[in-house]
Each structure stands twice: as C-alpha cells, then as structure tokens.
C-alpha cells in the first residue's frame, strides 16, 4: 500500500450524485414497466387499444431508451461521479457543470417521452431520437466528459483507479460513435436523412449498436463492478493486473464486433467472419474479468449469506459471464443462421440487461444510498426480497425467449421431402404465444422488484432525514 505523502481534507460534491441516484431508481421502475407493457402487447394485441401512440412500434423504442439511457445513464453518472471523487480524493472539477449535465440529461429523457410515442424516429436502433435531440445529447455528453476527465486531472492520488479508465473509455468511444452514427441531413424539425445509404448505413448502425453495448452497457458497468465489489466485500481486487488487461483487451477488441449483426446480408462476407472470430476471442477477456470479480470474494464468500447487496453484485458477474458466452456463440455463422431474427436475440440481450446491467446497478445503488444518506437501509429484508424477485423475473424472461427463439428458428428452416416449408410464418407466431405470456410474466416479476426498491429507498431517505432533524450529531457520525 502506498504511503500517504500528504494529508488533505476533501468535502465531496455529492448532492448531484444523490439526484442522479434518485433518478436512476425512478427510471428503473418506469423503464421496466414500459417493457412489461410492450411485452404484454405482443402476448395480448388488444392492449394496443387502436391508439397509434401506444402501439408496440412506438413504445418499444421508448422502453429501450428508458432502460438504456434513463435508467442506465443515471446509474452510470451517479456511480461515475461518486467513484471519481472518492478514488481521486478530490471534489468534482465543476459542480455547476455536473448540475448542467443532470438537468440536460433529464430534459433529453423528457424529449424522448414526447417524441417517440408521436412516431418521430430516425429508425436507427438505440438512436431513434430526432436530429436536434442528437445535438443535445452530444452537448450534454461532452459536458460530462470534460468534467470527468478534468476531475481525474485534478485528483490528489497518484494512481488513477481502473474504474475511472473504464468510464473514460466509455466517454471517449460513445462520443465518437454517437457523432458518426448520428450524421444526418435535417429536412425539418421532425425529419432527417442519414448521410449513409444502403449497406454502409447498416454497417454504421451496427458499429454504433454493438459498441453502445460494448462501451456503454459493458465497459461503463465494469467500472462500477471494479469499485463496488471490492467495496461491498471489503476485499481488494483479486488481480489488479488482470483488471488492466481486461480494460485494454475490451477497448481494442470490441470495435470489431458490429458486423456479426449482419451475417448473410449484402455486407462483404469477410466482415461477418472477422466479427465472428473476434467475438469468440472476446470470451477470454470477458471471462477473465468475470472471474476477477468473483474471485475478489476469496476469503469472504460467507458474506453472501447475510449481505444481500453483495448477492446482487456477484449474481451480476454470473450473468455477465453467461451473456458474454452466449453472444459469441450466436456470432458464429452456422449458429447465426438459426438464431438471427428470432427471440433468441431478445433473450441474449435481456440476460445482459436484466441479469448483468440491472443487477450490478441495483447493488451499486443500494451501496451508495447507504453511504450518501449516511444511514442503514430501511429494510434489509426488502433488499433480499428484491434480489430474489429480480433473479426469478430475469430467469423466467430469459428462458422463455431462449426456448421461443430456438423453436422459431427450427420452424422457419424446417421443410418436407418435396422441399416445401413445413410451417407458415403465422404458424410460428401462433406457437410463440405461450412463451410471450411467460416473457410478460417474467418482466412483470422483475418490474415488481423495482417497485420494492423504490419503496425501500424512499423510506431509507425519509428515515435519514428524520434522524438528521432530531439528532444532527448522530446523523453525521
């Protein structure tokens, strides 16, 4: 351990972190609720109620934007500002800029809530918002990037912790990806045309799409993992050297994967082969990182019996390992021939979103709520209940989609002795119904867990406020 050469007293800027934390908890409820509704529409189509604004095609992008950018974004910003201050032993470079970032991001979310149900969409996956919102995103994101980088510059610790590397990798790459992917010619306030066409447009789309998964939903959340698992378990990182290797291997490797979304299309064959080969190679660093997170618990496994927050964090690592194996397997051309365009893809994405991203987020949020409000949770039992609800919901959802997806693929490719397709497309849709019901139920269970969390967090904050009001000294202790 390094000797502390100088002693400084730092009062962190944590108000903005508290607000990002509360926003994340609220959007966790909202984003998954919209997901349950659109899943229910697929199982019971009458839920469209013949209203264009609430049809699947309009609410589905609202769901993805809500969970990725509203829930996931607020989690990343809360944890990012929390970690960079504490590991750098410094305040934020600019607290005002952080508040601009907070209100700017929430304004963008409001714009999404208004425009997407109205049908204003650029038709690009995970980048549907109108061109003027893309500009707002770029401005607000750059304010975050500047503040984060400068806070690292003014840190008072000599080493920059690995979590901050992951977050800065995300900031740099998402800036580059968002700007390039969003290049468009505006026609009016609601309409624009991408500057790319044909197969180039498809390639840029999935270069953005998969790297949003790689650097935002994976890299950013790995930064959370490398701080909060050691923190919650009270154990140092199992191998810090492996964490550095993990960061650089992901950074160099992820950018090659996008073409595996476009197997058997007009894209040159070699790009798909390259995407598949690098995808398989990425199992090594991904599993190395997952093992690093799990092995950090060496000597502290017994804590899993009583520490419910740690359960979230460790279960997230198991899902991370599972989905980073599932993904490369699906990238293989022969497997992709079966899995592409089926619900297997939906199952894979939700193994990552519900099992990895959400679980690590819930664990980090519970940890931060206790620290930020200087109190214990209102109910540890409710944290445990949330954990089991979330786990059962996620597994139910993912299993339904895996079974449904493989069944779809097999039905679509089945043909009889005369070479005629055995099943019509509508027969495959009909066969999916039980699994779509199961998916909606799994999602509803998962959503119930977010309500439990919201209640527990609200009561915890109220409890902390009451303690502070009656006994300010004890509240500070």
């Amino acid at each position, binding site marked *: 351990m390094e000797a502390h050469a100088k002693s*400084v007293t730092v009062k962190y800027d944590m108000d903005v972190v508290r607000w990002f934390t509360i926003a994340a908890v609220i959007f966790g409820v909202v984003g998954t609720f919209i997901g349950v509704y659109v899943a229910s529409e697929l199982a019971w189509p009458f839920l469209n109620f013949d209203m264009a604004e609430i049809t699947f095609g309009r609410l589905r992008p609202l769901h993805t934007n809500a969970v990725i950018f509203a829930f996931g974004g607020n989690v990343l910003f809360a944890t990012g500002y929390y970690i960079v201050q504490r590991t750098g*032993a410094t305040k934020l470079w600019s607290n005002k800029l952080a508040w601009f970032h907070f209100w700017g991001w929430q304004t963008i979310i409001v714009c999404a809530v208004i425009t997407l149900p109205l049908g204003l969409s650029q038709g690009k996956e995970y980048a549907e918002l109108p061109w003027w919102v893309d500009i707002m995103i770029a401005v607000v994101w750059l304010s975050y990037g500047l503040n984060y980088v400068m806070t690292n510059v003014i840190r008072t610790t000599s080493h920059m912790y690995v979590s901050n590397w992951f977050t800065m990798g995300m900031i740099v790459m998402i800036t580059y990806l968002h700007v390039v992917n969003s290049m468009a010619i505006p026609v009016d306030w609601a309409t624009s045309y991408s500057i790319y066409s044909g197969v180039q447009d498809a390639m840029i789309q999935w270069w953005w799409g998969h790297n949003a998964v790689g650097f935002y939903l994976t890299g950013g959340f790995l930064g959370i993992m490398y701080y909060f698992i050691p923190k919650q378990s009270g154990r140092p*990182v199992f191998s810090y050297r492996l964490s550095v290797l993990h960061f650089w291997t992901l950074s160099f490797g992820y950018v090659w994967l996008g073409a595996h979304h476009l197997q058997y299309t007009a894209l040159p064959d070699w790009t798909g082969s390259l995407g598949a080969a690098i995808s398989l190679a990425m199992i090594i660093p991904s599993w190395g990182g997952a093992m690093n997170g799990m092995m950090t618990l060496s000597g502290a496994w017994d804590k899993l019996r009583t520490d419910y927050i740690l359960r979230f964090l460790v279960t997230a690592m198991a899902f991370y390992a599972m989905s980073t194996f599932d993904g490369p397997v699906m990238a293989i051309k022969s497997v992709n021939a079966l899995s592409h365009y089926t619900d297997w893809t939906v199952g894979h994405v939700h193994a990552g979103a519900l099992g990895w991203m959400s679980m690590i987020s819930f664990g980090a949020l519970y940890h931060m709520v206790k620290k930020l409000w200087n109190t214990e949770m209102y109910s540890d039992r409710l944290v445990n209940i949330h954990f089991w609800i979330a786990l059962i919901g996620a597994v139910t959802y993912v299993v339904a989609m895996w079974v449904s997806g493989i069944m779809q693929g097999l039905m679509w490719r089945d043909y009889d002795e005369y070479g005629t397709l055995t099943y019509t497309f509508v027969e495959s849709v009909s066969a999916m119904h039980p699994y779509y019901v199961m998916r909606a139920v799994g999602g509803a269970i998962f959503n119930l867990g977010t309500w439990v969390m919201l209640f527990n967090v609200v009561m915890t904050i109220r409890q902390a406020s009451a303690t502070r009001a009656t006994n300010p000294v004890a509240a500070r202790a």
Partner: protein
Amino acid sequence: MEYLHTDWAAMTRNDWIGVTFTVLAFVAMIAVYIMVFNPRNKDGFAAQADMALRDEGDENNSGDKK
C-alpha cells in the same frame, strides 16, 4: 488461399488509411500486453488492488500525490 487473396493494385487511399490504423492499433495492443505482463510492473499493479478500500469516511484524507 483464394479467400485470403488481396488485389493490392485495387487498394484505394481509404483502404490504405484503414490498413494503417488497423496495424497501428494491433501494435499498440501488443505494447499494452507487454506492459501488463512485464514482471517488473507486477508489484506496481498489485499495490493498487486495494485502492477502492482506502477512501472510507465522509471526508477523505488519502491524497498521496506529490
């Protein structure tokens, strides 16, 4: 071998820029691996493994920058 055949004469300026960046990225990746696996750097990395645990308390006194 036919699959790997490259028509070098048909390479455009964009192709060469792409190839150059790809090779540079590959070299940089190798350099990072050498840095990480160099035995001389092992203790330096290991010394940071508990960094997340050093920041307890509402106020922080762990700044060690010279």
